[in-house]
């Protein structure tokens, strides 16, 4: 926690994006998380990615539930819309907002408690619906806000700060999402922005539900010896399997990539993700083999990271439900509320 705010002074040669804004324009309020919290690094990665995509701040919607993680939406893009929901209910709010206005960019930030305990049901159904949003889990394996009890993502055998061992198996959000049919599944680490920033960019541009499970060490309650989610342990046990570079839509594709090394995935708006396999045996487009691979490595105590699964062809929520192309607030009143005669007609069809 810092009592002087980050001064407004900036590097004079700070680059500007297409909107003429600097990275500093995408910052938010002063973070009140512990010094060294992984969540603050994720915040910085979101700032960087939003700036690089030149998202207009007023077109961004930041949603969260309850927990340390859920505070972070206050710390980036202060010009965006924010909604801090009831514990574990962020997906419902995201669902409603997204249904009403599909033109905005949705980013939900949650934690392992908010997502995998109280909010597990909501999380699953958002994935099933392929809701068009980026869902980031700031995963540290403990309930930091209530002094460090094991969360549902705590690994078997990990030790708490005072020495107790965890004997309950963890819920892995990546495997869960893959079995639920998620169309974009990634895992990353707060301490590796080179990997995380392009993943956030890709996730924001993906049409459908994009999950990024970010290992984000809790510097206060879970950064000790014996913890499987400390900075040191994570660095030793995380394995980038697929690196994703994000290439924004440009008139001419100038990126040079050799076949076999990189696999381009074209997103709906024409921008591309270039996948570079770091593990030759891994196929991020095959759900079954990818899931098996992740599980096998997990048995060895390793976390595979990167863009672990992507399927850009899946239909998203709006497509499945045939919602109007335009945000509801742009439709004329008569279209939104066609009157009692139309209602009667509709009801008659069911009689």
């Amino acid at each position, binding site marked *: 926690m810092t009592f002087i705010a980050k001064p407004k002074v900036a*590097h004079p040669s700070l680059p500007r994006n297409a909107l003429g804004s600097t990275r500093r324009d995408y910052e938010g309020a002063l973070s009140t998380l512990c010094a060294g919290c992984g969540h603050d690094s994720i915040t910085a990665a979101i700032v960087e990615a939003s700036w690089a995509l030149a998202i207009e701040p007023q077109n961004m919607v930041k949603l969260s539930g309850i927990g340390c993680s859920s505070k972070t939406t206050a710390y980036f893009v202060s010009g965006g819309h924010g909604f801090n929901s009831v514990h574990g209910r962020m997906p419902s709010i995201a669902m409603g907002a997204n249904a009403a206005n599909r033109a905005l960019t949705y980013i939900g930030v949650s934690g392992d408690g908010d997502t995998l305990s109280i909010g597990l049901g909501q999380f699953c159904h958002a994935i099933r619906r392929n809701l068009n949003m980026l869902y980031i889990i700031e995963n540290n394996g403990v309930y930091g806000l209530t002094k460090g009890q094991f969360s549902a993502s705590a690994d078997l055998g990990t030790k708490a700060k005072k020495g107790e061992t965890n004997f309950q198996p963890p819920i892995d959000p990546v495997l869960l999402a893959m079995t639920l049919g998620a169309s974009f599944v990634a895992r990353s680490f707060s*301490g590796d922005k080179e990997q995380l920033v392009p993943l956030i960019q890709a996730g924001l541009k993906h049409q459908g539900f994009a999950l990024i499970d970010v290992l984000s060490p809790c510097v206060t309650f879970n950064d000790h010896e014996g913890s499987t989610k400390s900075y040191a342990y994570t660095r030793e046990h995380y394995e980038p399997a697929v690196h994703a570079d994000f290439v924004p839509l440009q008139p001419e594709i100038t990126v040079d990539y050799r076949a076999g090394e990189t696999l381009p995935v074209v997103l709906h708006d024409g921008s591309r993700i270039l996948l570079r396999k770091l593990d030759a045996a891994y196929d991020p487009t095959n759900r079954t083999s990818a899931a098996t691979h992740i599980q096998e490595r997990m048995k060895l105590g390793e976390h595979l990271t990167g863009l672990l699964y992507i399927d850009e062809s899946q239909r998203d929520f709006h497509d499945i439900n045939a919602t109007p192309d335009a945000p509801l607030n742009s439709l004329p009143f008569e279209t939104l509320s066609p009157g009692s005669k139309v209602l009667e007609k509709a009801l008659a069809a069911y009689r």
Partner: protein
Amino acid sequence: MSVAATQQYDDNPRRASILTLLMEPTDTSHPDYYHRVVDCQWACPAHTDVPEYIRLIAQGRFTDAYMVNRESNVFPGILGRVCDRPCEPACRRGRIEQKPVAICRLKRVAADHRDDVTKLLPKIPKLKNGKRIACIGAGCASLTVANDLMPLGYEVTIFEQYGEPGGLMRTNIPSFRLPQTVLSEEIGMITGMGVDLRLNSPIKSMRELLDKGGFDAVFVGSGAPKGKELKLPGREAAAANVHIGIDWLESVAFGHVEKIGKRVLIIGVGNTAMDCCRTSLRLGADSVKVMARKPRGFFKASVWELEDAEEESVAIIINRSPKAFVLASGKLTGMLFDQMEYDLDARGQITAERIVGEEFLPADDVILAIGQENAFPWVERNLGISFDKWDVPVIDKITFQSTRPEVFFGGDAAFGPKNIIWAVEHGHQAAISIHRYAQGEAVAERLAPTVNLQSRKMGMHEWSYSNDYTPVERRLMPHVSIKERFKKLNIEVELGFTAEQVEQEVQRCLNCDVQTVFVAKLCIECDACIDICPVDCLTITHNGTENELRPRLKAPAKNLAQPLYVSAGLPQTGRVMVKDEDLCVHCGLCAERCPTAAWDMQKSTLHWPLATAEAASLEARKPKIA
């Protein structure tokens, strides 16, 4: 970082060559490293502890601020008005928002508002050490030598050709820039130490002084008193109305000249030219033109002196090369100039010049301000004091000793015209040499500078310095109105900062001496410092060569004059922490955000040895009888 990511780097074909040239961890124990981060102190020839005195001013401790200054630059009241301020162009604030901190004028604040400092001045021992030192010329260099040697028990005699001490500070700096009272008071602090000041005593022969003076050492601080001549047709015939700038200013200072013609041409655009044109306006001239041979970028005068002259409606005319003095019936009527044209390359250097025309400008008087040099007609050439092919004495750049061991030179007399603050530092260094010489020690073996570090952490979120960045612009010095200032020659134009201005200006200082000190083995690479740094000066990355590292930092480090700090390998990944010192605002947020205290804010104190420290160290090494 993971194994795979490292391998990706290993595959780089350039890896082999990079490996052999990786940057070494920065040696911050070298006294130059943290000294250099304090740009102002590094640029100051006398290494004045600028951030420290600015903090003292901020606390209203003007006397203490004055004494911090006096320790290194001896004449804070004088320098607070007329210093050439090499510190200001160096100031980090100037790189962040164009205008540097008004360091020089804050020095004046300390001098103007201090209490009596008599009791704080060095104590002069009653019992002398038996060594007699002669200083030639009572300018800033000699006065500094006296200031440093008197407290050590030396008997110092200063020989001055004029009836008043001060040298160039009195004769060449007009009183509307430097009031005589300020000058006299600060000189008085030194002469009051018991210096044997002999006024109206020009040294006519060095041989006589060395043979008959009975001095153990002689310090030559006679300045650069010879103004350069401009030999052009008509120069001799027009002599009555053509003046050498520094001689003319001296005549004005001593009241020998009180008037000048209505139309005056000044030849040259150095700081002396600025003093000449502004003095002319106060002696009755109503049209003053400063004639420059080259375009603006080539002017020698300081920007602020140009601004002050132009505020007084002095015209600066460029690209005019003097050709001839024009006379009618034996009297000067003006000057003829060649109109010049220059070709500049991309870097602004002149590649070609040509004459494109001719112009006559009428004038009643012409003042030549085209440079000055040191001259020693009174030093016989067979005394063992060598002079080089330009007839300049051969002086050691560190010890200021001449080729005759007991003779030392300093100030403009040593290496030609510089400025007051350089002369003061020459005096300090010469005093060390004279002391070592007089004590029979090798002159070249001197104490090295050292740096001490002390943490500024007071507790959770508390630092014992003002670490928040204050976004205020440089305060403008208030001036006496144009109408009022010309009424008398000695009306000081600058009024000094108001209390409100001081309060704001002091907050502009970035406290560069409160250093970011990093301990690599404590770092857990959480990125907290990198994310919070407002000016993006930190990066954790794999090591590389400096050329390859600079462009790939979070903000590319383009200012090659500013060093990179590179840590030892970090414990978890072996990467390095790199800090570009260029734009760090010393806000301390890296240390504030660091969960393991790998970063700390520590105040660096530079100990730049002066004669007292040298004496104490020699004393400590003497065998003791217990």
